[in-house]
Every structure is written in C-alpha cells, then in structure tokens.
C-alpha cells in the first residue's frame, strides 16, 4: 500500500484501509529472501562455470572472460524467456532472478516478444526498453555524476 500521508482520505477510507491491512496476506519476506539467495546464487554459479570454461578451453584471462560469460548468460536468459520459463523462475526466485544480468535480458526480451505484433519499428524497437529504460537512463546519469566527482577529486590533487 502506498503512503497515505499526503493524500486526503476520509475517516471511512482510513478505517477501511486499516481493516484491509489486517486481512491482506503479507509478502513472505524471509522466505522470499532465502529463495532469492538460492536462485541468485545458482545463476551466478552457472556464470562462474562458464567463466572457468572460457578461461580453461579458450585464450581468455579472468577479466576478459567476463565478456563471453555475460553474453552466454544473456543468451540463456533470452531463450528461457522465449520458452516461457523465466517468469516462473522469477515468481519463485524474486530478486534472485532480477538482479543478475539475466534479469536485465529478460526485461528486454519479454517486452520485445509482447510487442512483436505491432511490428519491428513501433513494436519491438519502441517498446523493448519499456521496463529496462529507467535502469539505463538513471544508470547512465549516475555514471555521469560519479564521473564528474572523480574528475573534480583528481583535479583537487588526488592521484
């Protein structure tokens, strides 16, 4: 339930909201945290396996192996989204399947799939970033601000 502080609610509405609060089932936070830990951990372990694979069988260093690893995880997430599996993993895993890069791939792929029926330009192109858009927008902006701070600190005689 959103904050009611600034909204003008009548006494009857406030009374009802208190009535509802007592009766609506709560999100099982502890259980969700444990599941998120489990699912997120499994996803990251799979990623780790791929990283070792690329380091062992190909000419990658620990740093450079992250690129093909991320690409592989993205492809797997997109395939699972297309097969209609990823949303079920997410209902179980919650934050555990949203936070890794696979969750980001799922936001793009699911929006693209849903809007394929409106064509490639207005549908897929226009809606693909519907959910991921805010993450990218504020991510880029935050990086810009941090970058500015770093430049100023260095200019002030840092390293």
């Amino acid at each position: 339930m959103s904050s009611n502080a600034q909204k003008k609610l009548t006494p009857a509405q406030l009374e009802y909201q208190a009535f509802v609060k007592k009766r609506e089932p709560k999100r099982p936070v502890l259980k969700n945290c444990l599941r998120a830990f489990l699912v997120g951990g499994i996803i990251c372990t799979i990623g780790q396996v791929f990283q070792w694979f690329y380091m062992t069988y190909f000419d990658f260093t620990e740093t450079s192996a992250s690129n093909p690893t991320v690409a592989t995880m993205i492809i797997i997430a997109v395939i699972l989204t297309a097969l209609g599996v990823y949303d079920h993993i997410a209902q179980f895993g919650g934050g555990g399947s949203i936070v890794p890069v696979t969750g980001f791939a799922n936001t793009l792929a699911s929006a693209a799939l849903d809007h394929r029926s409106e064509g490639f330009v207005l549908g897929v192109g226009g809606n693909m970033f519907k959910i991921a858009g805010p993450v990218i927008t504020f991510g880029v902006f935050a990086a810009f601000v941090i970058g500015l701070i770093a430049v100023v600190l260095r200019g002030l005689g840092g390293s």
Partner: protein
Amino acid sequence: MLQGQQSWIFANRPVILASAAVGGPFEARGALAEDFDILFDDLWLGQSSYEKAEKRLLEEACSKALNKAGKKKEDVQFFISGDLLNQVISSSFTARTLAVPYLGIFGACSCSMEGLSLAALLVDSQSAELVLAATSSHNAAVEKQFRYPSEYGSQKPPTAQWTVTGAGAVLLGREGTGLRVKAVTIGRVVDMGLSDPFNMGAAMAPAAVDTIQAHFRDLGVDHSHYDLIASGDLGRVGYEIAFELLKKNGIAMPAAKFVDCGMLIYKPEQPVIAGGSGCACSAVVTYGHLFQRMHRKELQKILVVATGALLSPLSYQQKESIPCIAHAVVIENEERA
C-alpha cells in the same frame, strides 16, 4: 421499472434464450472446464496477436450463443459488449463482424452484468426483441496493457490475481423458455483510497458490498431470497474482506451461499495466486457454470454481483486510487405456467 434508488424490476422478465462460455488453454485445465462450450488449446487461437485472439474469443462466444438459440445475427436488434482493452476494441471489432447495431460499454470486469442489465432493460421496455450481450478478456493482452509483458519475470505478491482468457455471451429475448432476468441493481462508484493494482480484490470488495446492500434495501429482500450470491472477481483476498464487511454491516450469511467466480474457475494447484479476474471471469462462470447448475435445478434463484476496478495504467502511475463498481443481476429459473 425503477424500484428504490438504483434497481430495476423487469415486469416482462426477459428470457435468456442461450448463453455461451469460451475459454483458453489455462481455463481448460481449470476446475470448471466441462461447463465451457468451447475451449481453445492455443493461447493465440491461430491469430497473429493476443488482441486478435481476444476478438476471436468474443466472436466465437457470440456465434455459439446464436447457434444454441437457433437464431441468426440478422434476428438480433442490438449487441451490447465491453472489454478491458483500450477503446474497447475487442467489442467494437466483434460488432464489425456481427454487423448488428451496437452499444459499446466499459465497466472493467463488471461488463458482464452491466451488459446483461442493459440488454434486459431493452427487452423489458419492448425496445428490442432480441439482444446479445457479451464480454471478453485475454490474459496476455490485458497483462501487456495494464501491467508487465507476459514473460517478464517479476514476483507477484500474494494478493495478485490471474486474468481469465475467455469470453461469455448471452442472448436475451421476450418470448421463450429458459432462465429469466428478474431485477438488477446498478452500482455506484466506490473508492476507498486503495491504489495497489496488485490488490484489486481489496479495492473492489467495498463496491460489491455497497451494491449488495443497495439491492437488499431497494427490493426489500435478504440473502434467504437467493440460493447463491456470486461476486465477480474478488479473489480470495477480496472475498474474505467482502464477507467480513457484510457481517460488520449486519448482513451475515452462510459462507456456502456467498461464492466468488474468481475462486471457482481454477483448481487450487493452478498458480493463480489469489484467484481469477478480468471481464471473462464473471461472464464464463455465470454463463457457463452457474447457468448449467440452474438448468440442472440445483439452483433456483441467484444474484450475480460483477465487480470492476475502473483504473487505467496511466491513472495508477499518477498515484490515483482505484475507483470500483459492482452491478447485481437477479436470475431465476422459472417454470413457465
């Protein structure tokens, strides 16, 4: 004829000549599968978009209802329909196919009983001989418009509901045998200030309670007058709240008499969280399951209270609360003298 403040009593008691319930693959695996007339095993129904699939569901329900009554679309004077998609496209596009004079309505998930009420009014007032009332919803089309893409992985809270893929249609006439529409109560918009689109049941419960109370007051009856009172799509959470609210307001009824269509339609093991919702929820359960039970004489007189949450994707992003409505229709199984 107006009775009390907001109810109509139909002296001519319009007859339900036929009804049809159509469902998708998830409904086919549900608890009421055998009460459907047509079940599709493909969520796309062979169409190129979910929106077209929903239109196809509605068209199938309409033509099935006409077939069952042995009528042609040319015999029908008016078609009344509503759905959840922007600009009620499923209804309007079906009206284009039917080519019957058309009234498009919007009452969110209360469309089923809103349409039936208006159809009964037209027939009762002798403004029409035959009226077709219908409604539809499609899980993926509705989720796409109101919430997230259907394959998007977000964890839904325990109050979330599952939009029913299906369509229901009912053909009303003046003459004939069958179930009859005896009275309706048109609901007021009730807004208790809730704004969580993942908890529609709690938002809609007061609207259902308000309409049930108004109905009892206007008609001077109580729950003992009915064999069953069915709410549209409150789900488990909303149902509990509505039941408690009724009790608090002095309308105590046995729990077995008050049911919710959203809780009946699926099996407990299906992952629908709090239950079914959407325009098709009350439509398919009433026009399929409940009407079958009435034909089998298990129920004589029922009150269906279809509930609707009148929000839009923009209104909740702008932090508006959710206005809700409920319309109640009395349906009686009356042996003709």
